[in-house]
């Protein structure tokens, strides 16, 4: 749609701008403020410049959790995106079954994140949980609280359980937008199912897929509550992701300066990756 140039439209955007700026800019400036000062109490604070940044960029604990975070996000995207597409392709398109499917699939998205952790905590326990108990019955020594590998797998499976539906629903709505004519043409050409997917469905899903990848990247990169409830970051530090390390630093040890400095680095990483996705998306829109 060709839009009319009109700078008075700012008046319509102003409430949103003020509201979001209030909640975004003031806290953000506070974080910036923390990151360049050493604060002992209200009256004694010293400007330290880039010292905190230098310190956090060499902190092995942060390197470790950043690395874990990248591995985790990569795993999440690699599992959930293909699985979500596959499920969207098999979902019924019409009638009562399709709305039932939609509702059931939306349920995990509507559960508070700490309850998601609780559900899996209960479900995976070896003494009272169905999953844990049956795995142990099968002779697999499974204990997510003690075994690093088990904890990782449990957190990943929990995330797949929690968020694959979002990818599937996004793709599903993208698929619904394809007119029947395309499929008819494909049938006349005797196109294989793969060809239909590769040349009709995938290109038409491109936009929603980009949104799905972007949302999943952002949210998995910021994950905090679910692993915190499920494993508490353990065993050891095996599932301590970046947000949790930061929260420990800021609230637990009250190391405000380094925590703030790293927060900004963290934010910049997410911003950079999301900007790449956004540019790709708007670029795709133009074509």
């Amino acid at each position, binding site marked *: 749609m060709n839009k*009319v140039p009109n700078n008075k439209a700012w008046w319509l955007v102003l409430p949103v701008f003020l509201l979001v700026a209030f909640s975004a800019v003031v806290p953000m400036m*506070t974080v910036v403020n923390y990151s360049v000062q050493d604060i002992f109490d209200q009256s004694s604070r010293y400007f330290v410049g880039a010292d905190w940044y230098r310190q956090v960029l060499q902190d092995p604990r942060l390197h470790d959790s950043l690395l874990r975070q990248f591995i985790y996000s990569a795993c999440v995207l690699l599992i959930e995106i293909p699985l979500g597409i596959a499920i969207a392709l098999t979902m019924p398109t019409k009638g009562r079954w399709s709305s039932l499917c939609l509702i059931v699939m939306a349920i995990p998205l509507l559960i508070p994140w700490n309850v998601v952790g609780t559900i899996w905590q209960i*479900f995976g326990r070896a003494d*009272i949980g169905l999953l844990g108990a049956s795995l142990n019955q099968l002779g697999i020594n499974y204990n997510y609280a003690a075994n690093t590998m088990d904890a990782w797998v449990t957190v990943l499976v929990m995330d797949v359980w929690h968020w694959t539906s979002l990818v599937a629903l996004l793709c599903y709505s993208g698929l619904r937008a394809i007119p029947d004519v395309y499929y008819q043409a494909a049938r006349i050409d005797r196109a294989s199912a793969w060809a239909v997917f590769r040349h009709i469905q995938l290109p038409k899903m491109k936009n929603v897929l980009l949104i799905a990848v972007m949302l999943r990247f952002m949210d998995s990169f910021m994950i905090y509550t679910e692993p915190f409830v499920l494993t508490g970051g353990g065993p050891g530090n095996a599932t301590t992701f970046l947000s949790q390390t930061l929260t420990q630093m800021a609230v637990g040890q009250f190391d405000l300066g380094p925590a703030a400095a790293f927060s900004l680095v963290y934010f910049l990483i997410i911003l950079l990756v999301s900007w790449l996705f956004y540019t790709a998306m708007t670029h795709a829109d133009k074509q």
Partner: protein
Amino acid sequence: MNLRKTLPLLLYILFLLVPIYWLLNMSFKSNTEILGGLTLWPQNFTFDNYRVIFTDPSWYSGYINSLYYVCLNTVISLSVALPAAYAFSRYRFLGDKHLFFWLLTNRMAPPAVFLLPFFQLYSSIGLFDTHIAVALAHCLFNVPLAVWILEGFMSGVPKEIDETAYIDGYSFPRFFVKIFVPLIGSGIGVTAFFCFMFSWVELLLARTLTSVNAKPIAAVMTRTVSASGIDWGVLAAAGVLTILPGMLVIWFVRNHVAKGFALGRV
């Protein structure tokens, strides 16, 4: 239906439902039965866990608090996002693209970064431990999302409708409320659903900004851990009750959800 196609879908749905079933199953058991051994359904069916929640004010006030700030947030988000989304979908103005991206970046800010500054900000203006504080804080990620979804829906409405209305002598506010808003009714429903959803599931900010009067249910749930161990039955019952409001809301918008997930851009 061919089996080869439906079987994976059925398996996936089973995978989604089994953990929830387990929670539901547990909420109807007594603690002795839960810890006594594995039973696939409650042997001694009991409502005791639910009774604890519905009779103890510190429990059920958690639900009321959560519902209160979630509704407040949905109303605020929608009412500021509607005009803004209209502006983004109809006009080009100075810095519109940058503003849009800036709005979206706020969804990307890790909440962990904002915890302490938020606490200080809302304490300093005397809003700490109020519902409005949580509602305003959740606007940070809900308003951008609402603008994004609504803009998609509004772009689908032909511009000729606006022009005709103006020619017919409608003023902008009257046109907006009388004609435009009813046209994108389903879009508003879907947006409300998303705002509700994201505000309802968020815990970190809600917990940080409240202590007693506006304490959300998610924070009350941590109370089940006591000296005598975890009260699994009540924890499970509380979990089940947090799922219900979301299911109620999705029931209302079930026919528009597919379009909503496309962010109105289909």
